[in-house]
């Protein structure tokens, strides 16, 4: 049995998958299997995986398209390791990443979800000099709700027991359990993390370093913000009964952060009107982001205002230097 299973959801990623697999196979901790879940790809994804199967740690599982959550669920169901890591098929891991998480989980039996910060890179795998540097310690459910310290789908390495604790099976599902909710096409990560935090006793804890390289796509980010917001609201509606007091206390602040995040994405897309709308919505919801993260919030307000009043020229020099996401 491998010690760790690394789940790689793969949908039409023939172009980026080799880089991901090379990075995973180069991990200094070697006792793992890689489960590439080919989620109904119509490109050469499956052939790319076969090209790597001279290393018998690489397994290919092909399924009809079930979406990101469905691919991850199939990976978890097939995983043989006691620890399960995730790496999206366009991201990469630093060589020490797995080793550090394995040690972290070994030394901390109360931690169920270990994660790290990430470095952002562009489509050409060029580091943008921007980072996700989340809160690492004393992580409470409200931190996950408001700022999701896990950050992206290639950051966590988790105990299988965490998934066992939240497994369920919808009546119509014949094949395997669900862990991520496959009815969500966005917000599936945060829904799962928050459900773990609200219903299990496992701790979330981060390790130092930017151990994941997270790829940012340059275009079309804010086009889906309405859908993203709708799925975030669906998550709140779904999870609220688990702990109404928690949502009464933190929902407005979390929604404010959510609007601020969407405002920042609109800024990245140079969409001044949308950015400013989301800034206003964020401030109407709650002032917590101003109090808790004043610099970042003020920066967002100023950027959105400049974009709306002056136009894209006001921000272009910054954006070229700094990349597009956070």
């Amino acid at each position, binding site marked *: 049995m491998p010690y760790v299973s690394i789940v790689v959801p793969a949908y039409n990623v023939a172009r980026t998958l080799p880089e991901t697999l090379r990075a995973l196979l180069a991990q200094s901790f070697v006792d793992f299997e890689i489960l590439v879940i080919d989620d109904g790809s119509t490109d050469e994804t499956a052939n790319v995986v076969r090209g790597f199967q001279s290393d018998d740690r690489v397994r290919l599982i092909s399924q009809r398209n079930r979406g990101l959550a469905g691919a991850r669920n199939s990976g978890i169901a097939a995983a043989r390791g006691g620890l399960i890591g995730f790496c999206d098929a366009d991201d990469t891991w630093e060589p020490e990443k797995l080793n550090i998480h394995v040690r972290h989980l070994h030394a901390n*039996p*109360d931690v169920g979800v270990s994660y790290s910060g990430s470095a952002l890179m562009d489509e050409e795998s060029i580091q943008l000099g921007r980072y996700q540097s989340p809160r690492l310690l*004393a992580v*409470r459910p409200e931190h996950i709700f408001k700022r999701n310290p896990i950050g992206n789908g290639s950051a966590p390495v988790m105990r299988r*027991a965490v998934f066992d*604790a939240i497994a*369920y*099976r*919808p*009546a119509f599902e014949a094949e395997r359990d669900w862990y991520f*909710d496959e009815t969500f096409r966005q917000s599936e990560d945060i829904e799962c993390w928050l459900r773990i*935090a*609200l*219903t*299990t*006793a*496992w*701790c979330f804890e981060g390790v130092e370093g930017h151990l994941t390289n997270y790829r940012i796509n340059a275009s079309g980010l804010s086009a889906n913000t309405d859908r993203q917001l709708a799925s975030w609201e669906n998550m709140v*509606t*779904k*999870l609220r*009964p*688990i*702990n*109404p*007091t928690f949502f009464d206390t933190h929902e407005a602040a979390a929604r404010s952060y959510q609007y601020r995040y969407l405002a920042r994405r609109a800024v990245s897309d140079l969409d001044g009107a949308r950015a400013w709308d989301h800034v206003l919505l964020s401030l109407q919801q709650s002032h917590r982001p101003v109090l808790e993260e004043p610099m970042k919030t003020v920066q967002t307000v100023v950027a959105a205002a400049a974009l709306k009043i002056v136009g894209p020229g006001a921000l272009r020099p910054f954006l070229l230097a700094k990349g597009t996401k956070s």
Partner: protein
Amino acid sequence: MTCPLKVVHLVDDTTAGGVTRVVDFILSSNATQSEIRHERQIVSRGKLQVTRYDADVIVSHLTVSWRSLPSLLLLKASNVGKRLIHVEHSYTEAFVAHNVTNQRRFFSLLRNGFSLFDRIVSVSFAQADWFVAQKLCAGDKVSTIQSCVDLAPFQDIPMRDGPARIFAAIGRLDRQKGFDALIVAFKACAAEDIRLHVFGEGEEEEHLRALAAGDTRIEFKGFAASPIDALAQVDVVIMPSRWEAYGLVAIEALSANRTLICTDVDGLRDHKSLGAEFFEQYSIGCISSKIAEVRSRAAGSAKENDRRSKPLGEIFLSKWQALLSEQQEASVNRPAITSSEVQ
């Protein structure tokens, strides 16, 4: 003739809840067997007192907390040579998720607390699995004895004819029980011929009544002095608990052959083998759709004989007997009680 094994059960919860009823049931076995003599001692929670009990085995049904830890230490120190067993009636994985802000500190409390005892009794298999998974104590130190009460009167409750129309929520009106979510989910069910009877009282009552306002299908019945009478009037029992170490209401409902639907959480998972059904997830949509599904079925169940034939009470008492007999070898002679208060 050999002397019976003397067992003292220490309790600090004297409310009419689960702990009292379970200890009552253990004590009732004094009437039917002579090898073990059970006795109950009520102690003040956390009070520091040096008491050497006149018993071979001491069974703690006490609350483990940072405040009570010194008194548990003193209990051990005052009873050197006696076997100490702790029954954990409260703490579960979901309890921690809902009530604990610093998990590590809490786990450290439980590890320290549990380490004072020779054996830990979990009240459900799910709870035992969690103790072991979270490394709160070694697997070979845990015995699982699912809680029980005298179920005979529940087994005698007559079956009800016709389709499932009357749903019941039975228990303290406390956020733990999740009746708020149930009421919202019930209101979302369109069927006019279903009823929800809420039995119990507690601090959430006003809030729950406000949630139910305007829906005449929901009735608050107050505290059920006789759970037997309450169950006799209903077709389905719903337990939307947010955490539950075992859930005596579940085995009472199943013994009465009522359909039971509950949260897939903690000790409620133990009832699956007895026929309990679960909400797919803890959401309004899932609770509503389960109510609708049960409503569309015929009342009663083909599993009647299975359920009623499960001798849960016998299993409970014989497991206690076996566990206590195991301790006999290790226990020493029994001096008289000496009690002196330190504080």
